[in-house]
């Protein structure tokens, strides 16, 4: 990206200015989610949605609905040497916690959600939404106490229970019943990415392996 005010060049993934008068500056990352629209609109009934540009839409220039399937065939661009265990266009959910990067293949999360792990010395949890696509991650610490979670049998909503207090938690990381009701788990940003791209920006990233629970 290039800003009009100074002409500096900004790296999209990191938000860092890499050349120009603002070189070395970083934009403050905004905590965001990548969700299915169906899941988001249940959580945010008063939200607003970016509209398509009518001219672009009329010209048919927006990506077709199946564009993700098409992207699987596009050539991969990276200077990194890739781990042979994953194909370059494997969809991963990337997490950076206290300087340590880890990639979770989406397929593994779908099979095993919730996934409990420790990254950068911090206990974390990754949860898949009821849409079987949206992923959120939290630090599983409350008042310095580490929590172990398990999932209630599938229902229309995500319900997690912690083994320590038996409190119930929802997909937004909020305690909704029990001793920890009303508490909020600290959210960790996740990035939905292709493995090759994640590895390009996080060369030291490790990969979560199915069943490799710590």
């Amino acid at each position: 990206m290039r800003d009009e005010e100074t002409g500096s060049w900004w790296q999209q993934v990191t938000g860092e200015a890499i050349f120009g008068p603002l070189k070395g500056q970083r934009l403050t990352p905004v905590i965001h989610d990548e969700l299915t629209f169906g899941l988001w609109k249940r959580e945010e009934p008063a939200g607003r949605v970016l509209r398509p540009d009518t001219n672009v839409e009329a010209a048919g220039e927006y990506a077709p609905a199946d564009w993700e399937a098409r992207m699987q065939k596009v050539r991969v661009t990276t200077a990194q040497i890739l781990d042979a265990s994953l194909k370059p266009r494997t969809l991963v959910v990337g997490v950076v916690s206290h300087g340590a990067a880890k990639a979770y293949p989406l397929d593994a999360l779908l099979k095993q959600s919730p996934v409990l792990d420790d990254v950068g010395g911090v206990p974390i949890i990754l949860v898949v939404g009821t849409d079987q696509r949206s992923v959120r991650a939290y630090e599983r610490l409350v008042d310095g106490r580490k929590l172990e979670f398990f999932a209630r049998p599938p229902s229309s909503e995500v319900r997690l229970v912690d083994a320590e207090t038996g409190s119930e938690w929802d997909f937004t990381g909020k305690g909704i019943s029990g001793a920890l009701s009303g508490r909020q788990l600290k959210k960790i940003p996740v990035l939905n990415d292709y493995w090759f791209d994640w590895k390009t920006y996080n060369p030291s990233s490790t990969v979560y392996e199915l069943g490799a629970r710590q």
Partner: protein
Amino acid sequence: MSIGFPGRKTAWLTLLVVTLIGLAIVLAPVWIIQPFKPQSPRGLAWSYVMRSWSPLVTIVCSLLALALLVYLWRGTRRWWRKAALVAIILPLLAVTWLARQNHFEWMFHPLPNAAYARLPEAGFVADADMVMTIRNKGEAVAYPIRLMAYHHVVQDTVGGTPVVATY
């Protein structure tokens, strides 16, 4: 016959060199920063330097080339030499213009006047479509990825904070 100063051969040669310099400083960064090809930090650094200097360098090259063109034009009557002069200077004028454009972002389509819909009017997004979402001070916004994959950069103010969403 080449009489006088500068010699006509020298003038032709200078014209060529000046044109090549102008073309190189604008086109080399385009080649280095082409999409779907990895870039090296060094290549990017050079590109930035060339890009910063290209508006000035191309204008100097163009003025020099125009002066040489006038000089050579007057001394020739052969139409094909005149044609060659035009053929040389036209690409130079083109890159001089290009050096003043934000051409790197032409293939992205920033959305200058982003518009938003409330949920009841948001029939253009399917439930299974992925959206990038943020929430700040009670204001929640979703950016459909199908649109972001086209525009790449959208500026917004959410909960009073100016943000840029990029994909």
